[in-house]
């Protein structure tokens, strides 16, 4: 018997999808924030070391 090809749209499944999306968005947000801080720190370090930007 072939498995049902239609996506599971039940409420528990949709909740799980949203939970995963929220977690991924939060992780991505933290990574982007850390990247901004890193670029700032690199700029300061290069200025202090007298290196070209």
């Amino acid at each position: 018997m072939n498995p049902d090809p239609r996506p599971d749209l039940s409420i528990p499944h949709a909740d799980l999808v949203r939970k995963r999306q929220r977690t991924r968005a939060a992780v991505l947000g933290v990574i982007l924030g850390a990247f901004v801080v890193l670029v700032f720190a690199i700029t300061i370090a290069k200025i202090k070391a007298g290196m070209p930007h």
Partner: protein
Amino acid sequence: MTVTTLTPTATLPADWRDFFALTKPRVMRSVVFTALCGMLAAPVQLPFVLGFTAILCIALAAGSAGALNQWYESDIDALMKRTAKRPLPAGKMERETALQFGVGLGVFSVLLMGMAIGLLAATLLAASILFYVLVYTVGLKRRTPQNIVIGGAAGAFPPLIGWVAATGSISTLPLLMFAIIFLWTPPHSWALALLIRDDYAKGGVPMLPVVASARTTRWQMLFYAVLMAAAAVSPWALGLAGATYGIIAAVTSAVFVGLTAWVVVQRAATPAEMKAERFLFVYSIGYILAIFATLAIDRLTT
């Protein structure tokens, strides 16, 4: 009309832990360690932030190479017990997602390295990703038992890149560090391949113990172990490292060669009987960590 059948798990967005698993964290850990040793062994010390950025880029590049490797090899990973639980064969992630993640991570790491550190370090970083993915994974792994011999160069890049990030140039010592890892890879990988030979055979990967006899594999391991030992003591012999490093490298390398010789005289045919091979595999991990840590400490203190 074509209907694509998805497993229930594949309809879910991948979890962040699946992305992390895609980067091969254990390999990444050893890459970071050897890169850090290469950087610390250099005569020039980078400001902390720039050193951190260089190591971060090397780690991300290793993650990219790991993700692209898993994207390409998901078919054989599904056949092997050791790799069947990875995110792609386990159906936790779409293949396209893994490809996008791997390419994105690789491009990001190379661009950041180029902007923060320099062109040579970024070029070597790009070369290491391309070598691992195109030369080793696509070109060699399924075609030749010499796959890990030539492919070992991919794992040898990190200390070289660490050194170049600090100095902006290549010299003899980082090339010797490259050679040590390059020559260490065959005995290390074949010790594991002897232990999980059947798994590789099931996946159709022509590792040396799959296509040649265990005896041939063991002799080849000894050949590379002797070359590796010579490379390991050469920084001291050439005056690039102190006596402390020389003594530790000579003793630990002699033990490595001795253990490999012990493997050569073994006749064990099943993994359960292969105590010498298992011992050598575990020792080889400790050995490479000890050699690189000693070299970095020796250079920092002299």
